[in-house]
């Protein structure tokens, strides 16, 4: 579903209340001890269990985790698409531009979607309405959120399609979603998300359904647009490769919690959490010799309706000891030499003392290409 359900009754022209963002010290996004719990017949499933995050304007963070780690639920809860309800419990706060997403009335929240925060989903076919033309998707959004008139909206729609690299935009606006390829549809979804110039874009597995050559195009496009529009991005993916080249910081999720968060280069060069380390080790790499034995993580991720006590990775962790099984490590333990590298582990894989610490630090520079890898 696109973030704007057509059933809204409020006048489309309500001007946006001014929001203090960017220039002030407040980060664009503040997530504090967020917990999303689903009550199911099998018991409470704690999909997100105590996540805190900060994101400044223009910054890109990658959220990486395996299926069931809670990364998608986190994205949707930040967006406010998942909110408290009969079977859903949301605790903690999400502030976008200083406003608490989950304290807003539904109508208010809807006004946040578009100009403040927008989302791109995995499957571009189901994010578009199959009975509406490409142009209608865009003009509908532009007229509702920005109050553009019909002609102006149509012109802007073409501009947006050009911006996302769609050839022959004048022909495309007349087409239906099924007439476009998967990569082209995902470009339309991105155009739709950018229609109101959001300050924060949440991309949830935006390329998982696409071929590798198209994946590269889409990731390049997202990177370029984020830079050009000074947009903060949360890139959610299961693919470490996707995250590695294209984010400033990474948060590695496991079983609803953040296991490790740091500058991207630091995470890939010196993973401190045994899970991160094992995950990186289990990726087949192009530089491996054929038939190289891959490292594996034994066992399976925990059942989130009955997670293990203590550290959730302990049952699969080769370094686990008594304390890990009894006591959950504090969620964010910053390192002595790098305050922005934090790890939730009783026995992190610390690099040899005074070696390489300067190197890992330099990765914190917020430039996108700063990772120099």
């Amino acid at each position, binding site marked *: 579903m696109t973030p704007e359900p057509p059933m809204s009754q409020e006048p489309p022209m309500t001007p946006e209340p001014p929001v203090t963002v960017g220039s002030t010290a407040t980060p664009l996004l503040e997530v504090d001890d967020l917990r999303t719990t689903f009550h199911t017949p099998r018991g409470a499933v704690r999909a997100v269990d105590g996540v805190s995050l900060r994101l400044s304007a223009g910054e890109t963070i990658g959220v990486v985790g395996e299926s069931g780690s809670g990364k998608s639920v986190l994205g949707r809860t930040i967006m406010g698409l998942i909110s408290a309800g009969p079977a859903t419990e949301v605790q903690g706060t999400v502030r976008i531009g200083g406003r608490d997403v989950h304290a807003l009335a539904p109508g208010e929240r809807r006004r946040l979607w578009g100009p403040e925060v927008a989302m791109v989903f995995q499957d571009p076919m189901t994010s578009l309405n199959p009975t509406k033309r490409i142009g209608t998707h865009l003009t509908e959004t532009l007229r509702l959120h920005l109050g553009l008139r019909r002609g102006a909206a149509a012109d802007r729609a073409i501009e947006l399609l050009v911006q996302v690299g769609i050839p022959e935009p004048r022909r495309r606006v007349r087409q239906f979603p099924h007439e476009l390829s998967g990569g082209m549809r995902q470009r339309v979804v991105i155009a739709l998300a950018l229609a109101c110039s959001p300050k924060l874009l949440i991309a949830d597995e935006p390329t998982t359904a696409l071929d590798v050559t198209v994946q590269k195009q889409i990731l390049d496009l997202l990177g370029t647009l984020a830079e050009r529009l000074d947009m903060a991005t949360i890139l959610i993916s299961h693919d470490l490769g996707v995250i590695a080249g294209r984010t400033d910081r990474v948060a590695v999720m496991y079983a609803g919690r953040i296991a490790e968060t740091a500058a991207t280069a630091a995470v890939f060069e010196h993973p401190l959490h045994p899970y991160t380390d094992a995950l990186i080790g*289990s990726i087949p790499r192009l530089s491996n010799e054929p038939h190289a034995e891959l490292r*594996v993580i034994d066992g399976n991720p925990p059942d989130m309706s009955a997670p293990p006590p203590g550290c959730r990775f302990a049952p699969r962790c080769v370094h686990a000891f008594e304390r890990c099984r009894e006591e959950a490590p504090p969620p964010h333990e910053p390192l002595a030499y790098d305050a922005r590298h934090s790890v939730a582990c009783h026995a992190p894989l610390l690099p040899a003392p005074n070696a390489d610490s300067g190197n890992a630090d330099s990765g914190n520079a917020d430039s996108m290409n700063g990772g120099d890898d």
Partner: protein
Amino acid sequence: MAGSGTVHLRESEQPVLSVRDLVVEFPVGRRQKVHAVSGLNLDLLAGETLGILGESGCGKSSAGRAFMQMPPPTSGSVLLHGTELTRLRSRELRRARAKMQMIMQDPVSSLNPRRRVRDLVAEGLSIWGFEGEDEDRLIRETLHAVGLEPEVVWNRRPHELSGGQCQRVCIARALMLKPSVLICDEPVASLDVSVQAQILNLLERSKRSHLLSLVFIAHDVAVVKNISDRVMVLYLGKTCEVLPSAHLDTRAVHPYTRLLLASVPEATEGGSRQTQPATELPSPLDPPSGCRFRTRCPLATDRCAAEEPVLRELGPGHFVACHHVDAAHVPTA
């Protein structure tokens, strides 16, 4: 292959599986047809893993299924241990095909949800009438070999297992009939990274312990390189390049293989990030004339439209179908 040719075949070496001029087409009404595979030639030697690499729509899955005769190819020949499968009647085919088993992408939906693990694994045996008191012991051994605890999973149904465990059951089931060829169609595409590594290691181990030859079909360049001895790159139903997988990342020269390699997201990323205009895969209903890759190829010239390139040998075991690259382009490592 995006041309044709047979120079890469190794007739002298008694392949386990050999495929000649394989064509798979699907009618789609209005007298149109999808050209899924157009003239594929390959051979698979004993103990070898052949990786078939390509993006969606390149015909890799259609080819894998045509080897299995499900459905049989439009034309061409598939020889398994010298037996021509395409000419066999269904009963004979089933008997001959027991030596070639297939593992599918989605392990959960390829298992009957109502049956228990024991019966799922035993099915092949009971169809072939190998039943006996040894049956349970054999099933236990096989389950053990694929890393499942027989006592734990024995009576479970697929929904009680994780995706990785289901894939293990599929592998156990395929191994029960002691096949010599295993066709793996994207066996790890639907699995998490950590589970993917377990299954890849398991396939390597099973290959050694059961003396298998593998056809490994996948879209992931790194996965294919890790498991294969040789790699064959397909594009729109035609072969682009065949080369030893050890040289995949360093010596591949076909522009399409280079594009695939350049698209692999890896930590070592950087370089240009301009917005490229979207490129489209040409329709398989009406593939381009000549070289099928020419519409996306940076090297394309008039010759590519007029004349289909034929596979040529560039070096030992390295074959490429392109008018514009030759041995001089191969980097010497």
